[in-house]
């Protein structure tokens, strides 16, 4: 089946941006290709949604790969890859704890760094550094050609420059 994804070469890594549903399938394909060392899972608040970035390395020939997928704010759920690479268990728990991305199928998705009774996910852009909600923050609309579709040839959907916030 054709995975809805966009592949590009960035510095010395090839980067796949993939649709959330196909994220798990791509990870299984990469695992089969021999990518066995999970370096990290980063989570970014893109303003229109939350992005999960999985950094992998292949021990045999030290090839590096990055898998990105974007999920909307209202249901930020992605498949967990802890069974493929146990090393990302804490990274996923931290992404859930600080950014609010839930991972379907994670063995015990609890808060890793903050205490259990916290309700907010502080790393989201809607809060300022002190954890207080920013009154004038609005989620941006979803980019027209979704990040995992090939951009239409004439114009490139450039990153919207957004002024740094906070004091």
């Amino acid at each position, binding site marked *: 089946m054709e995975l809805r994804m966009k592949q590009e070469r*960035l*510095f*010395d*890594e090839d980067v796949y941006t993939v649709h959330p549903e196909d994220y798990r399938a791509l990870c299984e394909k990469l695992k089969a290709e021999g990518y*066995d*060392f*999970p*370096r*990290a899972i*980063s*989570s*970014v*608040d893109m303003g229109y949604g939350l992005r999960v*970035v999985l*950094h992998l*390395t292949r*021990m045999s020939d*030290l090839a*590096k790969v*990055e898998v990105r997928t974007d999920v909307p704010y209202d249901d930020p759920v992605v498949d967990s890859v802890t069974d493929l*690479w*146990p*090393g*990302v*268990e*804490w*990274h996923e728990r931290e992404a859930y704890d*600080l950014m609010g991305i839930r991972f379907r199928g994670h063995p015990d998705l609890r*808060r*890793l*760094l*903050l*205490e259990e009774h916290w309700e907010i996910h*502080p*790393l989201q852009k809607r809060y300022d*550094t002190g954890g207080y909600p920013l009154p004038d923050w609005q989620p941006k609309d979803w980019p027209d050609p979704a990040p995992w579709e090939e951009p239409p040839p004439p114009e490139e959907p450039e*990153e919207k*420059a*957004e*002024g*740094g*916030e*906070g*004091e």
Partner: protein
Amino acid sequence: MSTISLEPVPGRTDEMVVNMGPQHPATHGVLRVVIGLEGERITRAVPHIGYLHRNHEKIEEARSYTQVIPYTDRMDYVSGTQNELPVVLAVEDLLGIEVPERAKQIRTIFFELFRIASHLVWMGTAMLDLGAITPFLYTFWDREIILGIVEKTAGARMLPNYYTLGGVRRDLHPDFFKDVADFLDHLERRMPDYEHLVLENPIVHARTKGVGVLPKERAIARGVSGPVLRASGVAYDVRKAFPYDAYPDVEFEIPTSPDGDTYARFWVRFQEIYQSCKIIRQLLEKTPKVGPYKGKAPARLRVSGERYRAVENSRGELGVYVVGDGTDKPYRIKHRGAAFGNLQVIPDLFIGAKFSDAIAILSSLDPVFGEIDR
């Protein structure tokens, strides 16, 4: 004479739950492990972290890149300038800043000096956990010499904030080369004593050989890196895998040990001290006494794009994922702590070991909680 068998009858004895909590002499900082004990043997180990979560990533989003560097110092507070390098390298890639050759060499000398300092702190505290007070006194004395050298050049002892975009912040102190050479001779005279005190110590043999064995595939799958991974037989070292700064033109070996137990982790760190001394000696000849120490960095930083950049700090692979949005403040910065990956093997290694072994295993993982909790 028939011998009595004292095998525990399952179901007859209860499990005792104990807190190896945030304030514990052997947890190298603020880690809490809830341990279920069946007599001496550990049946359950649930680590809890977050007691030193200082919201690095959220505060760094409100700081410019040059202000982020002092924050990275405070992540792995035992290995000083090693934490500054990933952010500096990532931003230099994104901005395409040229670093002069001499600046790279100075950075690598400091990188390896702090590796020796970090391994000395590890040796002191690990032996303290096993009950030996003497190594702590000697190792911290040697570390004071290193901190003296760093302070002369960079101005601060432990968290010097010395690297910057394009090189280093200040030129070397005039008698830097002589001090480092003297220190290396002193250390090489002292290493046989450390070998005798630590590696050939029968108590250390008894308490670490065959304890906490981490098989190779499990280590790779768990995302473990650094001496813990190399002690399980995997020769993965970011200095060789993705070389940076002056590492390509310096030859050194990567010490690995096949058997993956706590003694192997002790042994690998020892060999790394020798390798670091070798690297510094080569660099002392190569580095010109006088020359440029900082390249041209733009005054107004406009950093855009994403970059994941990793270095091999004394605990493993310390990585940073910088997302720039065109301003001088990072839009998002994610630190991948080296000890963060290494600490995930606690349940695998603790379960089945004795409680006193757990202390030796934890000290061989060498966690530092600034970079784990961030």
